[in-house]
């Protein structure tokens, strides 16, 4: 991770201080930090000479922005029409019940953040779930839960390997 106090400067320079590129700037910030930290946003507001309230408005308007840290993995469930008709809500319910998480929220152990998204454009293989950008097609409540449990196992294995 780039040194914090230089991060905003770098981002602003990357886009030539163009306020029109505010959303890409915030996307870069979130890509770097995992979410949008308040102090970084204050810094961005100062350097761009744009009121903080505007950054807050943008951060809370667009669904992809997070103002709180996310989990280790990003789980995205498509809720487009076709996925919906093929049972996406029951998959969502099952995941929420099993892992005790709300859509948009993060599991207590920080394993994953669950997002619902309106259509990822892979409608022919619905229902679709993404884990860290990797597509899983034709998922069911059972298979989705299995996939997510394997994330936990992977994490445990990775931690064990890190220890040795």
């Amino acid at each position, binding site marked *: 991770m780039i040194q914090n106090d230089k991060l905003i400067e770098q981002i602003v320079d990357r886009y030539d201080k163009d306020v029109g590129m505010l959303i890409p700037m915030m996307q870069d910030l979130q890509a770097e930090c995992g979410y949008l930290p308040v102090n970084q946003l204050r810094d961005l507001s100062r350097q761009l000479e744009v009121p903080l309230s505007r950054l807050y408005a943008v951060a809370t308007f667009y669904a992809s922005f997070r103002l709180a840290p996310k989990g280790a993995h990003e789980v995205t469930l498509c809720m487009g029409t076709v996925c919906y008709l093929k049972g996406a809500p029951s998959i969502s319910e099952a995941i929420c019940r099993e892992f005790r998480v709300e859509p948009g929220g993060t599991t207590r152990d920080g394993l994953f953040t669950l997002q619902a*998204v309106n259509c990822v454009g892979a409608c022919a293989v619905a229902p679709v779930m993404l884990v860290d950008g990797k597509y899983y097609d034709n998922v069911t409540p059972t298979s989705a839960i299995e996939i997510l449990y394997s994330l936990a196992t992977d994490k445990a294995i990775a931690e064990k390997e890190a220890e040795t």
Partner: protein
Amino acid sequence: MTGLGNTRLCGPADLERMRQELLSRRVPSAKSVHVCTGPGCAAKGSPKLYELFCAAVSQAGADVQVQAKAVGCHGLCEYGPIVLVQPGDIFYQRVEEPDVAEIFRETVLGGRLVEHLLYENPATGQKADTVDKIPFYKVQKRIALAYNGLIDPTSIEDYIAAGGYTALPKVLNGMGSEQIIEEVERAGLRGRGGGGFPTARKWRSCRQAQGSPKYVICNGDEGDPGAFMDRAIMEGNPHSVIEGMLIGAYAIGSSQGYIYVRNEYPLSVERLKQAIEQARELGLLGQNILGSSFAFDIRINRGGGAFVCGESTALMASLEGRPGEPRAKYIHTVESGLHGKPTNLNNVETWANVPAIINRGGEWFASIGTEKSKGTKVFSLVGKVVNSGLVEVPMGITLRQIIEQIGGGIRDGKHFKAVQTGGPSGGCIPAEHLDARVDFDELTKLGSMMGSGGMIVMDEDTCMVKVARYFIEFLQKESCGKCTPCREGLAQMLHILNRITAGEAEVGDVEELGVLAELLEGTALCALGKTAANPVISTIRYFRDEYDAHILDRHCPAKECRGLFRYEIDPEACKACGICMKNCPEDAITGEKKVPHVINQEKCTLCGTCWEKCPFTAVLKV
């Protein structure tokens, strides 16, 4: 990639030389394996197949002339992963990793077919070895998708060798702005994003508008759930969009373009970025394009996750670093758009059609389609059809032809109930109108719209009230919240639809929905709000009986709405295995060995576990 050095092209002659050079390197007897990596096939792991084919190619030895290509969405996603072998257009479907070696050995090297991978028509049992023998493809006419499946979208050389960047030099070589616009006008091209506004008229208004600089924008926000046409074009043939924008910008007098891609399409962003860099390298973007005085460059912006940003003024607000809130269009964006300057915004598919129109002429384009809707349209045909995927057909084709001939009819032996077109701004069309011709105006007469091209097919197991509720919930979540009728009105409509699907409706609810629909249509600020009630109104129009059943009988005829239907065990199908009884969380099922089990309706909470678990499908929804 091809060792041509990719030096800047100084003029049209340079470009032509490059094209000829590329073509001359083609060996007629060379084989080519094309692996589809469109959204559907990629989700099923086709990139790995491509890797395996590449490995096979490199192991084949220098004397074997063969290459492997990863290509854009070919269309028949249902049967993916798809692999094509050229020459000959040999079509293999549902290819898996172990099949790679067999295909390479048998077809590529040996010239023989691998029978078990050929497409088999489920209706006739006939196998098809080439693309043109498959009903799904036979009826299609491909302009925007012409190069999908043919070229490697990450290679500008492929695009040029296939004939791309032919329209651009033609334009720079001596077509004036008005001449270009006239050609597009002759073609009768109308916006493919849903609005259907005549493209030439828009270009002309922008060209004539006062103010500078002028901007051209490509709307790649494709928010309609169920639609992935633009994604397939951006990922399968990004240069067609760039070339289209170059031509449009030249005609309008713009030197700065933007492509706005929704956040949920990172691969589209990557492909477009790559394509833009390649174009810049060759001098097809930037200053003095092909030696002319024309300068034009493109910037890519990602959306932040907001369906409303598909609306042109909201998109422009987003490009200004603001929340994506639409504004009044009493002053059009061609006059005052991005940063208050004249701006021309067109959809991905619209731009992708422009090079073909310039190359083959407006008259040719206008010879396809209907009187007021010229050319072709790409549709995403999804839902309960046998062949789901992406299709491109001439305007004027009927719904029946699309769903039955191309789509192969309804899957799992079910029956057609409705087709939802036009996304959340559209409506549901029932069986009685299957012979309606699909174009900009016909579907609107039926209470729906063609929209951006999403076509979701539904069968008898779909509750139309629930469909209406789904769309209203979607729109409520995506509403920007700026104007009262959309923000409050959709919440009120959802409240009513929730009551209806929960069996708590009141007489008069349908009329209330109608009142709210009229209010939204008349007073909402933008098209999202104005058309938001279409799914509700069209389902009330054609499926009023379902609404009445929910409201008056507290019954869901499609048996989807929980609590509005019962579960019963069919005594003739029940084998008394006891699985349902063991799994019932309420102990509501009784039965002994060899005696058909029975559900106690008083205890039953309608969780559906028995229905899911029964191995003999003896649990019925009633």
